[in-house]
């Protein structure tokens, strides 16, 4: 682990009209790492990212981004941070090269023409550079957005669900680019819903209802959750997996019951109670049981189930 932290924040809180979006969140991201930022919709990921790059002022808390105070040095942070918004936020009525030119001019980059050409080349946009951004498909828009936010050679990239609505091939290429950038020394914070993307990160942070619930490498987070999981597969023709799922859910110690094809995945954090609840079913010859390693998804569903929904009270009927 590199000693210098690219992001180091403590107790960040933000409310909108009385609703807590982010609740005393603390986060540390070492330089040169890729941190996956995970959590359900509305959990406060976008709000956190916006506070990190100075778009929102935190109600409480303090911290630094690239060694600069997020409360008082937002302008200086902006020059060294590349932020890719969730929704495409470049000009649809400008062409790819015009968008990049605009960004390069705003940052006052020397050798603008060469840098824009290099960014086009790097992301394979050269042939399309005269196309209007509004006419591009999702994958190409995403490349343009990435090209625009790395143009000024930032030291920190904040990517807000960059691969939402992008096909698997484009996603894979995008992640290869992210890893190349990290290899060049950039720190990347990327929010996502995809488990496979989370596993491509050096470390992950899981946030739900504004609270940080877990942080660390994928194996650390999985190990810390202390889950035990079992998989039941049908061993006899009369095995009724749907009925089994119904009977299991709600039993003490069973926190997750999820079908995977014809198999059923069951798990819980309290191993003793889980085993006690499963015992009668494990004797049933219709099912074959085996213990397996919990996945990241198991951990997240478990974490989500345990966290209190602080929005539930305020939700409209």
């Amino acid at each position, binding site marked *: 682990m590199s000693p210098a932290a690219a992001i180091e924040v403590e107790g960040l809180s933000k409310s909108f009209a009385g609703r807590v979006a982010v609740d005393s969140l603390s986060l540390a991201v070492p330089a040169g790492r890729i941190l996956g930022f995970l959590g359900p919709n509305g959990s406060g990921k976008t709000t956190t990212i916006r506070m990190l790059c100075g*778009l*929102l002022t935190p109600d409480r808390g303090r911290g630094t981004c690239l060694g600069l105070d997020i409360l008082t040095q937002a302008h200086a942070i902006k*020059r060294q941070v590349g932020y890719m918004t969730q929704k495409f936020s470049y000009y*649809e009525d*400008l062409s790819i090269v015009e968008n990049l030119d605009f960004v390069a001019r705003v940052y006052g980059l020397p050798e603008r023409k060469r840098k824009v050409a290099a960014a086009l080349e790097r992301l394979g946009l050269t042939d399309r550079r005269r196309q*209007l951004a509004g006419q591009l498909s999702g994958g190409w828009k995403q490349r343009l957005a990435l090209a625009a936010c790395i143009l000024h050679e930032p030291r920190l990239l904040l990517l807000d669900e960059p691969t939402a609505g992008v096909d698997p091939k484009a996603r894979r290429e995008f992640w290869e680019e992210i890893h190349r950038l990290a290899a060049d020394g950039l720190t990347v914070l990327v929010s996502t819903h995809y488990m496979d993307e989370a596993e491509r990160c050096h470390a992950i942070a899981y946030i739900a209802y504004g609270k940080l619930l877990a942080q660390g490498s994928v194996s650390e987070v999985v190990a810390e959750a202390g889950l035990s999981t079992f998989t039941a597969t049908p061993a006899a023709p009369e095995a009724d997996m749907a009925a089994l799922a119904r009977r299991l859910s709600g039993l003490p110690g069973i926190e997750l019951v999820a079908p995977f094809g014809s198999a059923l995945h069951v798990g819980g954090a309290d191993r003793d109670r889980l085993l006690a609840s499963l015992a009668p079913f494990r004797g049933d010859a219709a099912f074959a049981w085996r213990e397996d390693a919990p996945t990241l998804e198991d951990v997240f569903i478990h974490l989500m189930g345990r966290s209190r929904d602080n929005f539930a009270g305020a939700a409209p009927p």
Partner: protein
Amino acid sequence: MSDRFSLGRLWAMVTKEFVQMRRDRMTFAMMVGIPLIQLGLFGFAINSDPRALPTAVLDADRGPFGRAVVAAMQASSYVRVTGLVDSEAEADQLLAEGKVQFVVNIPPGFSHRVARGERPPLLVEADATDPAATSGAIGTLNVLAASALDRDLTGPLARLKPSPPPFELRIHRRYNQEANTQYNVVPGLMGVVLTMTMVIMTALAVTRERERGTMETLLVMPLRPLEVMLGKIAPYVVVGYIQVAVILLAAKLVFRVPVVGSLGLLTVASVVFIAANLAVGFTFSTVARNQLQAMQMSFFYFLPSILLSGFMFPYRGMPAWAQAVGEILPLTHFLRVVRGIMLKGNGPGEIAGEVGALFLILLIVSVVAVRRYRRTLD
């Protein structure tokens, strides 16, 4: 320091706005179309001193003096006799239906009574629902009635000529001798067109960024509010000048409005006015949440600008409170400047006060706009 105002970043905004403007055909068409359409409508269609008003004559006298009066009326361009009627009922009907503006009622025995020196009344009934339409004509008819019979009252009747009034009333119209409405409307139109297009264009400028989601990009980049504002305003100053040029050309070639003063001075004064309107629009766009609200605010601003600035109604005819409202509108001051330069030939000395007022408005509105422009999404 990077936090200082930067010409480079301003230039980035300006070029971006120009490219976007070029792509937006509809807006571009509006910029040239609005001045032309408004000129056509206001310049040709609106005339606050209408002539050739349809008039019916009820001649119960059928004598020489009655006919002379009617002939004199017809000779003035204000009245156009469209028909003779035989009864008062018929005359009332025509007035009620709006077919005529005036009915000239010559009572029976008018010529005899004139000859006998009885000074008989001559009744002119006017449809005064629109006072503006008839006031000019009525004024003329008054003068006309006094002199219509001069030629006929000769010989023994000469003593009946009205004795000269104790003073001579002479109306001398200055600057616009023919009281040509177009001379007043066309220069004023320059201000109205600029107010309308400049305010709407910039009012949409920031709200459009917000609606399209590009505001987040603008905010996360190291752009200062003043750079964004000037960058949004500068391209429209050019547009404003294109409109000024279109209107001046039309004023000279189509409406033949004389330009007495200096065009250079007008150009300099216009830039202050254009900038003030753009700043007003920019302020609206920092307040409005979406483009519809921005449009509504622009119209809310546009109406008093037209009604209270002296463009549509005489400024001096308004009550004090309305004049006070008019004073804070840039259009009021610009109308005085543009009419002063074009019609009176005013120089820098005469317009300095009004241009100063425009500067003050520009300054106050700009400060409000820059302060309202938020650098975060809070």
